[in-house]
Structures are given as C-alpha cells and as structure tokens.
C-alpha cells in the first residue's frame, strides 16, 4: 500500500481540510510576492505534472512541453490583443492550439527512440520560438507581446484582487491533477507503462503503440496550453523567455526532483521549486560564495539538484516518501505479526 492508498481512507476529510487550507492561504499570507510566486508555481506545476505523463509514464523523452505552454500564452495573447477576443475564450483556444501542436510534434516523435525524441521535440519547440520571433508585428518579437489584457468578470479585475488568480489557478491545477491521476490509474495508463517497460511485449499484447503515445501527447498538452493562456493574462505579457533553457531546466527539475511517474511529485515540488529558485535568485550569499552574478546561481543550483536527485534518489521526493511510508507500514505489520 502506498502513501496515497493510506491517505485514500480519509480522503473526504483530507479533501475538505485541504480545500479550506487552500482557500485560507491568501488571507493568512498577505505578502504579495509570495502569492505571486504561488500562482506562478501552480502554473508551472500544471506544466510539470502534464510533462510527467509523457516523460514519466510513457517514457518518451519529450522536451516540447514548455512549447505547449508558450503556444497557449501566445494564442490567447494574440487573440486578445489583435482581435479583441475575450481572454476566457482565449484560454480555451490556448488549450486547443496546444493540443493541435502536440499532435503535429508527436506524429514524427512517436516512431523515434530515446535521444532522437529529445532532439526532435526540442527542435520543434525552438522552431515555434523562431516562428514567433519572425513575426514581430503580430507577436512583439524579442520584446514579447505586451498589452495583453487581464482577466475580468464584469467590472471585477483579477489583478486587483489578491485572491482571484490564486483561486483560478488553484482550480485549474486541481482539475489537471485529478484528470492526470484518473488517466494514469486507468487502462490507458497501464498501457503507457507497459509500452515504456517492454515495448515488444506490449505490442504483442495488442497495445497500439503509435495511438497510445499520440494520445499521451495530446491529453497532456491541453492543460499546459490553458495554463499558458492564464499566464499571459496574469503577467499581461507573452514573452519568448518561456522557450528558454532556464525555464526548461526549472520545469525539468520539478518532474525529476518531484518524482517521475507520480504526478503528485511534480505538482507539489513544482510549487516548492518555484519558491526555492526565486529564493536563490534573491539571496546574496550564494553569489558571494561562488563569486558570480545572481541570475545564473539559481540555475546552477537547480541543475545541481537534478544531478543529486538522479544520483541518490532516482524516485524523487515522492518516490522517497512512498518508500519510507511502505517501510514504516512493513515494520508495523511485522510488529503486529509478532504479537499474534
């Protein structure tokens, strides 16, 4: 029984406590920066946990997930700025274009293996970036697309409230996480694991490889696309930095440090890593110690964390928690057996 199975017993109670605690956060934490980081963290957590579906469960070395996020951001941003489309529709459109892009990338990617998938998907995401930069009149080019309108319901403007974005993004993360957990515990999830662990055996048992991998890409691109759109309206800008190496590394660390093939790992560690990496960027001592400017320090730190995790806890934080909890349970079991 894993930690989650144990928690499952009390799941209604825990869900209520969790919900109340979540709703209370913006009341308790009044520091604007912290709330801002929490919102960013939850958006990144959406991307990281969806990435985990392809990287962790399907075992596909896919590096296009941030591109889905970026495509969502630019889709909704451009629609709003250039065509006056409502941001709410833009969020849906962001999910749709990301889904379309995922199908286009996955068609060549699913037949390739290992490193070639990584190269292809990374190349695709750079291609999207170049495409965006090549059309500065529409996309704002290097500066990014500015003047993206904020989310609004009637006269209520989201950026003027400390709660609005926090609740909206929290809700999106919740939906995405439930969706992903249902997927990975379904027969579809079983088929992805089977293909990952033993491709030849899996196809020998009737699992259609190309179709399942394409579905994995498609189903894991929709929430990142929507999250990207929310991101653009939250920051009122869609920037090409989304496609940069730094953000990719940060998000990769969320998946790997959180624990591959767990979904929950990247969700929780995604939020934590956002804080930690920001802390690194704003703390002076690291850059003093290493004698380099503050910007790169956090990415050095993130990269180091990835290497250490892979070396010592390949299951990531969530894998470690599961391992410890099952050890405790076994000890309890052994103790109970001795008594009887």
């Amino acid at each position, binding site marked *: 029984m894993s930690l989650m199975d144990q928690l499952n017993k009390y799941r209604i109670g825990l869900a209520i406590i969790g919900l109340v605690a979540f709703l209370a956060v913006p009341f308790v934490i009044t520091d604007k920066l912290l709330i801002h980081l929490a919102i960013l963290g939850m958006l990144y957590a959406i991307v990281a946990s969806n990435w985990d579906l392809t990287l962790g469960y399907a075992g596909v070395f896919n590096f296009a997930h941030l591109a889905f996020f970026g495509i969502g951001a630019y889709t909704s941003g451009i629609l709003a700025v250039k065509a006056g489309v409502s941001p709410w529709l833009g969020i849906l459109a962001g999910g749709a274009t990301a889904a379309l892009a995922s199908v286009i990338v996955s068609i060549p990617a699913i037949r390739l293996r290992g490193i070639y998938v990584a190269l292809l998907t990374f190349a695709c995401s750079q291609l999207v970036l170049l495409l965006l930069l090549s059309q500065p009149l529409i996309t704002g080019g290097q500066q990014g697309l500015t003047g993206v309108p904020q989310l609004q319901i009637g006269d209520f403007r989201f950026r003027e409230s400390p709660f609005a974005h926090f609740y909206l993004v929290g809700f999106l993360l919740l939906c995405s996480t439930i969706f992903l957990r249902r997927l990975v515990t379904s*027969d579809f999830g*079983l*088929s992805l*694991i*089977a293909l990952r*662990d*033993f491709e*030849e*055996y*899996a*196809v*020998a*048992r*009737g*699992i*259609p*490889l190309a179709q399942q991998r394409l579905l994995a890409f498609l189903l894991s691109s929709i929430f990142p696309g929507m999250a990207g759109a929310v991101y653009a309206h939250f920051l009122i800008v869609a920037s090409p930095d989304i496609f940069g190496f730094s953000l990719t590394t940060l998000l990769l660390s969320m998946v790997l440090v959180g624990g591959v093939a767990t979904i929950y790992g990247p969700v929780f560690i995604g939020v934590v890593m956002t804080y930690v990496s920001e802390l690194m960027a704003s703390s002076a001592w690291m850059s003093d110690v290493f004698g380099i400017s503050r910007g790169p320090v956090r990415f050095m730190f993130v990269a180091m964390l990835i290497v250490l995790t892979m070396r010592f806890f390949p299951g990531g934080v969530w894998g470690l928690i599961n391992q410890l909890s099952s050890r405790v349970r076994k000890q309890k079991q052994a103790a109970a057996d001795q008594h009887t």
Partner: protein
Amino acid sequence: MATLLSVSKATKKFGELVAVDNVSFEVDEGEIYGIAGPNGAGKTTLFNLITGIPYQADAGRVAYRGEDITELSPHKIYELGVARTFQKETAFDTLTVQENVRIGAVFGTGMSPDQYDSAVEGALESLELTADRDRLAGELSLYAKKRLMIASAVVSKPSLLMLDEPAGGLNVSELSELEALILRLSQGETTIIIIEHVLPLLFGVSNRVMVMDFGRRLAEGSPEALARDDDVIEAYLGERGKDAFHAISG
C-alpha cells in the same frame, strides 16, 4: 480441416546470415503443431516474422485464415487472435500479476469490461496465479513468470497460441503440469504452435512436428515418423550421434 495459418517461402536475413530460409508450412485449425531444431536453427526468428515482433519477413508470405498478414502491425495481428509468448520469460515487472494479465484482455480483444474482468479471473485461475495476483510480476519465480506470460496470452481467448520454449528451465513435475495445460488449452478453441527443445514434451503433445536446421525446413511429419527419420536424428546428434542412436534403438 481448414488451414488456419499458412507460411509460404518465408525468408529472413541478418546480414549474411539467412536465419529463416525459404520456409513453408501450414497449420490446421485445432491441431498442435510442434517446431523442433537445434540452437540457432531459426525457430524464434520464424515466430518473430509471423507475429511482426520485432520484424517482418524479408520475403515470402504469411496468411492467417486466408488473409495476408505479412506486413500487418503486431497489435493488429493480436487483434486477429494470434497470441505469442517469448523464449525468455517476459513480464511487465513493475505491474502486478493481475495487471499483467489484464493488459492481455483489454487491448485488441473487443471484449466489454465485464467480459475482460471475468476473462482475467479465468486466466489467473487456470494458470494457478490467483494467490499471486497482487504481487509484482518482477518478484515471481521463473515458472510462475512463464505461467504469467501464458496467462496474459490465453486471457484473450486466442485462436492461435504460439509458445516459444515454454518448458525451458522447468523441473519434472512442472513439465507434466505444463503438458496437461497445453492439452487442456487445445481442447478449447485454440490452435497451438509450440517450439520446444524438450522433445518428450514436444512429441507428446504435437499432432505434427516440423524440424528446422540452418534456417531451413528439414522435415515435417507425425512425431512417430520423425523419430525414425535419419536426417532429423543427425541434425540433433550429428553423424556419430546418429550411429550411436541406431546402435541403441536397434
């Protein structure tokens, strides 16, 4: 009786090596068809090119119920009712026994959820895996793993079951269990092709046996006829072995 599988002039090369060389044979519905031959004869390669896993034939044709399946993708071949096992015991180690079997039932069988739930129970029971259902496949013993691989194939109620050396590494009592199981499976709707080095088992269950050597079909016939065939004995035992064999058997 109707022909279920027909392989004609199948060839597969690995560079210079002709692993399967212009092999033809037919399997009738309901029979148990044995394949024998020394190591490296091309038996597994023949299974591979029939099922498309992991490659197809370079030349020749494979037909199933008269339909050309030479270039069909592996999962489609499974959909048609052809299920195989592998020579090396194979399982999804990080999944439970029950999940391993379930995979065989859910995909490509056209069963409804109710049907595959009960098919999974049936397969677990008939291969005596019910007690191990929640264990991880990776923790199983060799024999249990072999049974699991067969369970995940028979759960789909295949019309054609292809077993690649199911007896390798089994002890005497496991062997006789396996023999009983194969005969039981063939009493249902299932046609069986079996590759086996354990000749008593192979000759005991098979209606007909093909012997391969150096990628070629050397002989085919009833087990009784083959046991008297000099070429077959020579392929297995060599020239001197053949003389010795005749000396013993008179």
